[in-house]
């Protein structure tokens, strides 16, 4: 199984600022996913981050708001830009299990925007 860590685990931010969330995996993976989980809601896929190419964003999510970096096969960052209270959520990264379809998830970053 893959071990995934995220930093920070939580943060409280002011409106209009940006926060960069880091995701570190203990093994090399081609695909990494970023999800958002709004309070009381399920997970919604934001984007897929592939090493060496631009991230692929899902409907309703744009690069200007959620820029993603993927500098190598074990690391990715998601930035939440120009934050508003509506961005208050848990942000999770995940990776697929090699050769299988299930995913391993990080512990999440709980973001509160005031």
């Amino acid at each position, binding site marked *: 199984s893959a071990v995934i860590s995220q930093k920070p685990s939580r943060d409280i931010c002011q409106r209009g600022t940006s926060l960069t969330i880091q995701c570190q995996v203990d093994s090399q993976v081609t695909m990494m996913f970023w999800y958002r989980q709004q309070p009381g809601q399920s997970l919604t*896929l934001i984007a897929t981050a592939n090493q060496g190419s631009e991230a692929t964003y899902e409907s309703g999510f744009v690069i200007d708001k959620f820029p993603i970096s993927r500098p190598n096969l074990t690391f990715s960052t998601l930035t939440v830009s120009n934050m508003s209270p509506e961005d208050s959520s848990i942000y999770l990264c995940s990776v697929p299990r090699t050769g299988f*379809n299930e995913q*391993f*998830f*990080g*512990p999440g970053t709980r973001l509160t925007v005031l």
Partner: protein
Amino acid sequence: SQKIEQNSEALNIQEGKTATLTCNYTNYSPAYLQWYRQDPGRGPVFLLLIRENEKEKRKERLKVTFDTTLKQSLFHITASQPADSATYLCAFPFSGSARQLTFGSGTQLTVLP
């Protein structure tokens, strides 16, 4: 568009009983469906995957069924324990992608001692 629904937001059952959670989907025929467990403050943890050609899958006290005619999956926990209390999520792959998942809203299960 694809839609996935779980039967209720919360389910309370007595310890020792069987918990049954329901996942219904529309506008799609997934090749497989997955179930995850999520504890507060943690990311989801994979439990079981069932493919469209499988009627039932078991793992210890867990059992999953998949009815492609009804477009429904049932998730059972037998001999439930308070430690089984968590939110359970069903998920299936995006159309055209085997790796990207869409999740149901989850059912919060509480097993009462």
